[in-house]
Structure formats: structure tokens, C-alpha cells
């Protein structure tokens, strides 16, 4: 635990230096594309006098100065499967983004969707020392959480305090300075496979970049796609990516659950490829141009040239109706949504007061999904696009960039995590100076 703590703190320190330097890169390692944004931080925008809140909800402290995407290689289900290939793809994206920004970036924050995220809700409780709650008390209460046995070979990716309770009052977001006796905390712990993290870190290191942070793409997609009141009242964000579909539930502006389904748009493509006997590239093209999930009478008459370069005239001149294509795509999309539904049910989403669901990610752009999704997920479904951030090129404003944009928001105003607080003295591995100071404070 301490090792992880040190690691995460090191990353946080790196992020701070990057912020001071003013330039940081965002890397979204996806299954179908790898996106890289270069952010420049100009410091907080000056508050205008007429208006209480700055533009873009105060999130305009940064500006995207470089953006590039490249077709992803060597990534399956949101996890790196071929290191060399992924490294090359990352290099391509980073170089293009650097070229656009005309600036060298050294620090990068990465996000990935796979690695089997698992959510844990943990709670801790502690007696407040000396009247009012101090930062040290918060550190202690977080340290007092009973960490579940999340298994060998897994690492904590996020550990965010979502709720503080002081005596009988709950729902505090920041209890510092308040007077009370017992301080309790609810913490959300997200663990992922350690190997995946290691692979990502290795790839980024091979590209001469410093890893300054990691985030789960389900989380970052939620940050960018859910509007503020949805985050406050409770909503689920479903990030339908290429190889994995991320699910995250937000409540009171905190993520309280995250999961990922190892199904995505690439499976729809491979279904089309298999069903129509065409190569994957053509299947992808057919999907994006003619795809859909709700068939109408018109679709029976709309014939699609499949094309191909097999050399066999008969094979290359085949035509299918759009209805057939929809007939191939729809079951797979339904399967994905049902899987998501199952995860939401397992998380107890139906007990939340608000049942808002936001679909985002590249695969959410299938026409007709807004008709299909409510049948499976419930009535309050909308297709979401990420927040507009300053300087983002038009090509990168689509739903496919939800997690990249969310990651830049995460970089600009990160959520407090467990490792942002100092380890309380009694948890320190050795009797350090801090321990001595505490002893003096207590006894003198």
C-alpha cells in the first residue's frame, strides 16, 4: 500500500511540475484510436466583474494547443497487447500533437478503458483530535479505512473520498475546520490490473515521456459528458468505445462506481465482417456510413454496395440491403447494452434517485441508438458529447473524444485522492522526524 502511495504521490508531484511548466499532454489509449492533446495552462482566467463564474464553468484555465489522433495498434479491449505496436502508435500521436503545438511535451497523463476495473466502497471512522477537523484528521480517517482484499496483481487507480460525515451530519464535502467528535469517510476505491498499468507506463517511458498521472477512461468520460447537475443529482455515463465499454456512476459530483464491459464497437465491426464476408476495413466503412440499429421499411430498399478487391467479380459486386446490415448490428449493440444494464443493476443503480443515463464514446454515434437504448436502459437516456474546451479542433469534439476531453478536465482540476494527504504519522513505516514532531505536539 505504501509503495502505491509513493508511486501515486510521485505522479502527482510530476503533474505539479508539468503544471508549473505550463504544458502537459493527454494521452487516450483506446482500442480503435490513440488520441493525444497538448494542453497549455495559462493560469486561472481572471474573474470577470459582471459574472460570477468564468467561461466554461471556470474550466478555461487551460487551452488545447495540439491535437492528434492515430489509428490504434496493438490494443485490445482497452489493454495493450502488443507493446511495440502500441509504442509506435503513441509516438505517432504524440509527435503529430507536438508538431501542431510546436512545443515539446515531457509530461503525459494517460487514460485507458480496459484492465478490468473493480469498484469498492470503503468506509473509515476516527475520533477527531482536539476539537476541529484538521488535514491530519482527514489523512487519518482515510488511512483508517479497512481496505478490502482486492487480490494479487491489482493496483489502486483511484481512491477518492466521496463523502465525509462528522458526528450525525453526513454529506460533507470538506469537513476541514468543522467542530465535531467522530469523523467518518466513505471512499471509492477503483482497482485495475497491475500489469496493464505497468505496460502503459513502460510504453510511455519508451517514448521518452514522463507519466504524470493515470486515470480510468470510464471516469474521465463521465467528467466530460455529464453536465454539472447530472453529476450532482446522480447519473450513469456509458462510454462506448472500440474494444471496451466503460460504465461510471456519478453522484454528488463524485464517482461512486466504475466498471467496464469488454465489448464495444469493434465487435460490431467484426460481426459485420463475418456476416458479410468482407475485410474488417470495409466492414468498418460500411458500419460508419450505413450502420444503424432500428430498421424501417425504407431500409429494405436501400441497397449497399459492399465492394471488395478479391478479384472475383461476383463477390466484389455483392449488394446487401441496409435492413440486413441493421439485422447484423442490432443484436450486438443490444448485447452490449444488456451487459451494461447488468453491471448497472449489480451496482444498484436502480436504487439511485436519478436514473439519468448518458451514452457517449465513438460507438454511441450509431444512428437509432437513442431509440434502442431506452428499451434496455430505461427512459432517461441521452446521447452525450463531451464538454467544449478551449482550442479543441472541430474534429476532436465528437463523442469519441469524451475520455480525452475528460482527462484534460481531470488534469486541470483534479479530484482529491487519498494520496494527496500526508500519511498519518502512525502509519509511517519507520519512526521518522514527523513521528517525533507529533510526539512533541501531543506531549508538550
Amino acid at each position, binding site marked *: 500500500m505504501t509503495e502505491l502511495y509513493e508511486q501515486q504521490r510521485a505522479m502527482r508531484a510530476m503533474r505539479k511540475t508539468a503544471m508549473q511548466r505550463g504544458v502537459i499532454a493527454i494521452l487516450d489509449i483506446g482500442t480503435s484510436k490513440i488520441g493525444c492533446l497538448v494542453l497549455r495552462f495559462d493560469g486561472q482566467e481572471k474573474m470577470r466583474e459582471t459574472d460570477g463564474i468564468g467561461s466554461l464553468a471556470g474550466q478555461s484555465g487551460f487551452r488545447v494547443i495540439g491535437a492528434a489522433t*492515430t489509428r490504434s495498434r496493438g490494443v485490445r479491449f482497452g489493454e495493450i497487447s502488443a507493446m511495440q505496436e502500441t509504442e*509506435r*502508435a503513441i*509516438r*505517432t500521436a*504524440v*509527435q503529430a500533437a*507536438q*508538431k501542431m503545438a*510546436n*512545443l*515539446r511535451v515531457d509530461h503525459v497523463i494517460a487514460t485507458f478503458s480496459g484492465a478490468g476495473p473493480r469498484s469498492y466502497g470503503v468506509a473509515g471512522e476516527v475520533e477527531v483530535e482536539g476539537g476541529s477537523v484538521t488535514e491530519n484528521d482527514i489523512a487519518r480517517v482515510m488511512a483508517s479505512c479497512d481496505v478490502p482484499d482486492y487480490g494479487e496483481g491489482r493496483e489502486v487507480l483511484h481512491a477518492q473520498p466521496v463523502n465525509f460525515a462528522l458526528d450525525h451530519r453526513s454529506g460533507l464535502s470538506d469537513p476541514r475546520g468543522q467542530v465535531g467528535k467522530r469523523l467518518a469517510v466513505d471512499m471509492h476505491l477503483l482497482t485495475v490490473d497491475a500489469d496493464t498499468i505497468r505496460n502503459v507506463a513502460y510504453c510511455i517511458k519508451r*517514448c*521518452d515521456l514522463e507519466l504524470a498521472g493515470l486515470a480510468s477512461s470510464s471516469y474521465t468520460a463521465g467528467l466530460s459528458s455529464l453536465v454539472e447537475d447530472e453529476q450532482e443529482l446522480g447519473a450513469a455515463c456509458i462510454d462506448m468505445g472500440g474494444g471496451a465499454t466503460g460504465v461510471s456512476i456519478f453522484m454528488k459530483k463524485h464517482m461512486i462506481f466504475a466498471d467496464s464491459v469488454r465489448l464495444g464497437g469493434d465487435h460490431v465491426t467484426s460481426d459485420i465482417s463475418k456476416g458479410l464476408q468482407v475485410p474488417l476495413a470495409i466492414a468498418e466503412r460500411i458500419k460508419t456510413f450505413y450502420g444503424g440499429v432500428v430498421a424501417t421499411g425504407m431500409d429494405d430498399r436501400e441497397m449497399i454496395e459492399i465492394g471488395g*478487391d478479391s*478479384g472475383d467479380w461476383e463477390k466484389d459486386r455483392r449488394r446487401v440491403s441496409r435492413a440486413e446490415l441493421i439485422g447484423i448490428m442490432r443484436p450486438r449493440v443490444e448485447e452490449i447494452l444488456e451487459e451494461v444494464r447488468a453491471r448497472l443493476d449489480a451496482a444498484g443503480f436502480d436504487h439511485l434517485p436519478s436514473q439519468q443515463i448518458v451514452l457517449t464514446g465513438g460507438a454511441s454515434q450509431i444512428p437509432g441508438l437513442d431509440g434502442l437504448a431506452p428499451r434496455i436502459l430505461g427512459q432517461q437516456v441521452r446521447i452525450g458529447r463531451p464538454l467544449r474546451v478551449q482550442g479543441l479542433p472541430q474534429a476532436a469534439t465528437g463523442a469519441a473524444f469524451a475520455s480525452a476531453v475528460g482527462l484534460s478536465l481531470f488534469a486541470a482540476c483534479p479530484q482529491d485522492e487519498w494520496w494527496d494527504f500526508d500519511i498519518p504519522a502512525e502509519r509511517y513505516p519507520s519512526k521518522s522526524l514527523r513521528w517525533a514532531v507529533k510526539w512533541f505536539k501531543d506531549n508538550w
Partner: protein
Amino acid sequence: MQQIGADQYARPEPPMTRKPKKAKRDPAPSRWAYRVHRMWLTPFYRSMLRVGLPTFLILTAAGWYISNPTNRFAIAEKAAEIRNSVESRPEFTVKLMAIDGATPVVDAAIREMVPVDFPVSSFDLDLEGMQQTIAALDVIERVSVRVRPGGVLQVDVAEREPAIIWRTGGNIDLLDRTGHRVASLTERQVRADLPLIAGQGANEAVGEALALITASGPIAPRLRGLVRVGERRWDLVLDRDQRIMLPEIAPVEALEQVLALDEAQDLLDRDITHIDMRNPGRPTLRMAEQAVEELRRIRSLDRGEAGQ
């Protein structure tokens, strides 16, 4: 021509054949290309390559060129040639010298002192030096030397005006009002119109001397000159070897006193050799030898009469 073999009976190539797919170029930059690009984006390397390296190359090339003495010589020669071609242009040629405000003698002297071979380039003229040389002449009070448009070396001269003649030892000098030497004279008679002073240090007090000469208006025809005595006071010398010895302080007033006495009692017409005004409160007279004897004779007559 065609070889007969199995190929003859082989199926001909179909007219539309699939071209073998070329391996797509890898869009990813190689590790080194990536590193070089990143290095190029680093401001330090960028400025080094864009500014530092060209500067270094230019300086090195220039240094190498200059280090060769032949090249250095060629550069100097070329520079001199360019300079010469500019200097020798007709716009900069000076053709003659014009001297204003000088008497013919001085004019000739200046032309002799500052010999210039006309025509000459104005760059070659040392105007400062010429001015100093000309100003070193005693007769010159001020001089300005400049090159006038039209290629004329203009020398404007103001000459000192001789106000007095000073005789020391064997020399006779002309002095101006301030006591500065103007020129030498061979004979006093050449400038009979000017008053004469003599004695060591007389040139230091020319102003006083002139004031005395002005004040001695009524006896001007008789005035022969002024003599500086002991470098501190004046003697007024008249004809018939008469002298008026003036005090060091306020000599003009003393002279006026003497003139007033002369007016009233014809003092100077009498047989007196010196009128000593060195103590103005007690003027003293020295009479001539003959006059003294005459006086004694007259007195003895008086006494004799009185005694007889």
C-alpha cells in the same frame, strides 16, 4: 522468337490482375526520428541550430579569411582605394585659399606659414593644425579656418591693433591695448604716431600707460614717453629732460594734480628736472643745477642786502 515450352500452353494472365499490395508505409516515426523531432522542438536546441550555428559558421569563415595575411592586405588595400576614390572626387577638392581681414604683410606671412599645394582634397587638410599654426602668430587675435562650398579654404583673421610702442633693450616692439606683442619695429620713426613706453615689465601695464597718455593731453606735445620703474610705477618723461615721477597707486590722479599745478603756475615751464609725486600728499620738485645756483645767488644777494 518465343520459346516453346510449358509456358505456351499456360493460361494467359487475366487482363485485370490484382496488383500485389504494397506494404503500407508505417506512419509511425522511427525512434530516432521521434527523438530528433523532440529535440528540434526544444527551445535550446532550436535557438542553437537557428542562430548559434549560422553565427558560428559565419564567424569561423570570417576568422579563417582574415587570418590569412594576403587577404588582410587585400582588404586594407581595397578600403584605401575606396577611400581614395571618394576623397578625390571634385566635390571635395579645395582649389584656393582666401584670407580675409589681414593686411598684405600678414596675408603673405600666413600663406608662407601654411603652405598648401592646391588643388587638394578636403580630407587631407588639417584645419585644426592650420588654425593653431596661424593663431601662433603674434599679430593674429583670432582666426577661423574652414572649407567654404566651392572648394575655397577660407581663413578669417582678426589682427591685433598696435596701440603702443615698447622699447626694451635694443628691441622696439609694437603692443596692442592688452599688452600683447604685435610686431617688432626697426625704428621708432616708422610709427611716430604711437606713444612710447620703456622699461622692464612695461608691457604688463599697457592699459595704465594708455590711461596716463590720455590724461596727459595738455602736455602731449612735450611728452616723450613713459618709463616703467621697478616694474611697479611710471615715470612720465617730457622733453627738456623733465620727469614726472608718478606713484604706484592712482597715478592718473597724481598726473592730473601736476597738470593742475602747471595750469596754475606754469610749473613745467620752469627750470625743474623732476616733479616727484611718489607721495601724492607731498609733491617734491627737483630743480636744475643752474637754477639752484641762481636761487642761491639771489638768496645770498637778499641776505647780503639784509646784512649790508
